[in-house]
């Protein structure tokens, strides 16, 4: 017996792998048909179909998604049961009878072909199943064979169990200690060699890497790095990691390390054949990591924001080697947003509650902020004042204010109409 589970909810793409992991608790053979659709082979599993459906719902309950289930010996029949009759169990031999009242669109036939069937007086799956197999193929081609088998409930295809994503990691624990930079890099190189080999064996490339250091004084440190382009090359990974480690200081000797490849992807990447002068993504990633290691803060990119006539708004953000955005980049006109009028007022000190350095409440007694944006680097050019950090905040009663951060104090400096 096969069980088809159809899942609907938000952010399925990101959480689908985790959901499949959860379904492993129900059956060891799970087929990942598409995002939001999975087949489970329930042969030999203790219990009844109704209990299996309950198990599936229980397994996916933590994700807060809507789950529909259907059971049948036939995969297509199970899918139709899940899609159109949640919780339905189709007994063996009754697949064709179950499928017959459903419309042709359930068979995943394109609309133009459905129109042709309708002109021939065929609107239901049962009517299609009643057609002779040979003439149907001659008229609609080889693809009609699949439709006919499905309509008859005879599509007995084996499940394709999903591949398990095994972590790719390497570690060195209790094998001595590294007291100098050379020793540390040597050990890292060794571990990265193992990671690279594992990636190559599995046909994967790593989009990032996490390195955990265990020191002699029982302290631990973890570093996560992401590459501009997924790679399995030891040298490329090592270059980025070494650049990042240039500013790291360890208080004690490193006695253990664990390296784990992150964001595993299918190997293979586009290569530039005739554009030797173009910047390689990996070179940019190495340069950014090296500069961050040297300066102690990331390289930045400026971004402009729509603002009032008398001021310019811009912010800085971390420069990421995001080539897709860069290669297609052209400064587009800023969207015309309706901006309320800001009235600048004499600065008045206010009490501001912070969480992680970001304003969350204002005033005494504190009013919770509905929304806050910033900080804006603004500069009063007319009065030759230095740039300062300002935030726009919205209170629950609909009022908007501009507040200003100077050293450790906060000031109210503007009111929006």
């Amino acid at each position, binding site marked *: 017996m096969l069980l088809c589970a159809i899942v609907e909810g938000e952010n399925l793409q990101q959480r689908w792998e985790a959901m499949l992991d959860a379904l492993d608790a129900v059956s060891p053979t799970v087929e990942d048909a598409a995002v939001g659709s999975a087949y489970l082979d329930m042969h030999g599993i203790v219990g009844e179909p109704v209990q299996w459906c309950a198990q599936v719902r229980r397994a996916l309950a933590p994700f807060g998604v809507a789950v529909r289930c259907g059971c049948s010996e036939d995969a297509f029949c199970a899918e139709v049961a899940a899609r159109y009759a949640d919780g339905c169990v189709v007994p063996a031999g009754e697949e064709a009878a179950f499928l017959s009242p459903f419309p042709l669109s359930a068979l995943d036939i394109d609309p133009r072909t459905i129109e042709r069937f309708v002109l021939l007086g065929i609107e239901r799956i049962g009517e299609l199943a009643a057609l002779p197999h040979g003439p149907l193929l001659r008229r609609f081609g080889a693809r009609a064979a699949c439709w006919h088998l499905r309509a008859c409930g005879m599509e007995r295809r084996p499940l394709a169990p999903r591949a398990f994503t095994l972590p790719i990691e390497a570690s060195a624990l209790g094998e001595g200690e590294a007291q100098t930079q050379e020793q540390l890099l040597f050990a890292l190189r060794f571990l990265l060699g193992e990671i690279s080999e594992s990636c190559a064996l599995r046909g994967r490339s790593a989009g990032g890497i996490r390195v955990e250091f265990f020191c002699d004084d029982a302290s631990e440190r973890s570093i996560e790095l992401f590459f501009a382009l997924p790679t399995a090359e030891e040298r490329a990974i090592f270059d980025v990691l070494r650049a990042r480690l240039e500013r790291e200081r360890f208080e004690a000797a490193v006695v253990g390390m664990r390296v784990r490849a992150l964001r595993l992807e299918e190997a293979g990447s586009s290569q530039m054949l005739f554009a030797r002068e173009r910047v390689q993504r990996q070179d940019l990633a190495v340069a950014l990591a090296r500069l961050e290691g040297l300066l102690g803060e990331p390289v930045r*990119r400026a971004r*402009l924001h729509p603002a009032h006539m008398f001021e310019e708004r811009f912010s800085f953000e971390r420069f990421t080697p995001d080539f897709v955005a860069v290669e297609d980049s052209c*400064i587009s006109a800023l969207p015309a947003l309706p901006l309320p009028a800001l009235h600048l007022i004499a600065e008045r000190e206010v009490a501001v509650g912070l969480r992680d350095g970001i304003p969350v409440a204002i005033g005494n007694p504190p009013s919770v902020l509905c929304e806050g944006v910033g900080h804006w680097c603004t500069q009063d050019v007319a009065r030759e004042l230095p740039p300062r950090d300002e935030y726009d905040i919205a209170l629950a009663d609909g009022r908007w204010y501009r507040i200003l951060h100077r050293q450790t104090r906060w000031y109210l400096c503007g009111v929006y109409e």
Partner: protein
Amino acid sequence: MLPVPAPQRNREAAFLSLKERLAAAHRPAPSQERRLPCELPALDTAIGGGLPAGLVTLEGALSSGRGAIAFRALAAASRSAFVALLDDGGCYPPALAEAGVLLERLLIVPVREGGLLARALDTLLRSRVCRVVFVRARAWSAAIWGRFARLARETGSTLLALLDGPLQAPAGLPVLRLRCRGERLVLCGRGSVGGALLGFAFSVEPLARALPSRTPISLQAMLLREAAPLRERSLHAVRAPQRTLRAHA
């Protein structure tokens, strides 16, 4: 005049031809290197097609137009490559965007300490990811500037340096020196009540040897777009001089 016999004429022509060929062998070959046009035609022509790879110094006092040229070069380079700006805290992105620099391709490297500047510059140039690297004046010795000039030349980058005074560079360095000098202000109106600063004119004098022209070139940097409506223009005129002078100085 007596007629010159034919064999002697032939000998003279052969001698002139030989002399020309010998001179050509010692003449520097026309440069095939890739140049970065500033999109200021007069200046580009004067310096042989654009800024070369290596060190380019923009020398002059405040408000002498050094920044205007630097931003033009950054804008031109950012259309096809990454550019970098070593920021000592005075970076003002709206002015860069207004000059045409694509901010998506501008690496702003925050360098708070002077000691780190040279190392950051070295890292940037060696990485070969940026076509133009822009840095403000530093009191470095000629040897350090020379090292960066050679490094930039090797990596095919243009290192744009804004200097307050002349660079004492040893001979043989791949340095193009541009001396900027403010000449006059451009005002709209009659310069009295209601008049506003529209722009400023400055001259650039290339100081490197073997350039097509070493005569100063007059350029004019305008602050306002001419198409701006009158109301906006007057508003800009209130704020533009302070902001733009700061950004370009």
